[in-house]
């Protein structure tokens, strides 16, 4: 019958398309897709272990640098994490245990970032109007010649 042949052809065609779609899907859709939602489930664990944490917090620094830590926690910079000025611990002590000298920034900018009087800072935060500093205008001068960053006094 002619009609039956037409139907057979179309059924065959649809079956081939279906098979190709399912096969392609098997290759293209990641294995863990749909595990937790409409995304690749394995991606979550990958994000958890993307890289080792770089910043460890001031307590970790105190393990080796007890004296500096004590001095700092007793002074006005007790809430200023070591890693703000010296960079992350992960860059100082590498995963294999090797030690790289951390940056010791003694520049004017180091202090000015927090303490230069500018628009925006809360009024009660200690700030220096550079032109009115006790020893005259101090713009660009090294604050650390007089002030100790680990235990600063006004």
């Amino acid at each position, binding site marked *: 019958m002619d*009609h039956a042949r*037409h*139907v057979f052809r*179309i*059924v065959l065609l*649809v079956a081939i*398309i*279906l098979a190709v*779609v*399912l096969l392609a*899907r*098997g290759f293209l*859709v*990641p*294995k*863990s*897709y*749909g*595990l*937790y*939602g*409409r*995304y*690749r*489930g*394995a*991606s*979550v*664990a*990958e*994000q*958890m*272990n*993307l*890289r*080792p*944490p*770089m*910043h460890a*917090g001031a307590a970790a620094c105190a393990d080796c640098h007890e004296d500096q830590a004590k001095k700092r926690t007793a002074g006005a910079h007790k*809430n*200023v*994490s070591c*890693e*703000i000025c010296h*960079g*992350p611990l992960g*860059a100082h002590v590498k995963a294999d245990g090797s030690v790289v000298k951390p940056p010791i920034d003694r520049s004017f*900018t180091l202090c*000015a*970032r*927090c303490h*230069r009087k*500018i*628009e*925006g*800072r*809360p009024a009660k*935060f200690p700030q220096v109007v550079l032109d009115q500093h006790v020893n005259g205008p101090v713009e660009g001068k090294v604050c650390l010649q007089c002030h100790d960053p680990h235990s600063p006094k006004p």
Partner: protein
Amino acid sequence: MSDCHDGCNGSRREFLSGTLKLAGGAVVTVIGGAALASSGGSDGAEASHPGGGEYDWNEHLWAYLVDTTKCIGCGSCVRACKAENEVPDGFFRTWIERYVVGMNDSHVDSPSGGMDGFPPVQVGFAATKSFFVPKICNHCRATPCTQVCPVGASYRTKDGAVLVDSDSCIGCGYCVQACPYGSRFIHPATHTASKCTWCYHRITKGLKPACVTVCPTQARQFGDLKKEGDPVRGTIEHERVQILQGHLLTEPQCYYTNLDKEVR
């Protein structure tokens, strides 16, 4: 053609309707097969929580809290974020904005995202107040960025972080446009979407995000809404907190206290 009008039309109609039915059937089969395949993909052991380690995402629901009155604009958070997450130059996962506001005018700046602090600024109007506003991805509950992703590369985890699967991302940039907070960018090296993850590699190990860890004034806080007695949860529960662009109904999970009307 012209000598079999009626008969030919009749059989063509039958043929077309038959084809349509077959096509419909095929579509149902494909969808059913796909649903079966995806449900078959979840095999018991891994399904409860990813990684299979100590960290169980069912036990946490993270939230971020910013007190704008405490921010001094030092940019330590921006630098820490860069170092922690290898954020490429010129792009930011977190940044600080400075608002200088007068009665009729306002001025907003964020030089290098506030990474190197802020210089003094001259505005051409009488400023009456000024303040800093730290910004990050809001990790919205009804997040627009994941909704537009055509390949399922962007998603929200069960513990509340909005993440990008860079292996699946095709870099089309829809999510970058969809985010009303400007929190996403296309990474210049990988050409995939990149954004704040709340330092997912840290928070799943019991640490705080890098920006919160280094903030010297506790302007940035990070907490767990599922944990009794968590200070961030306490503030969100009992104090008056604000969100950015609430009219967009994205349900941000980055909360602010003491926000100004000028801040978007």
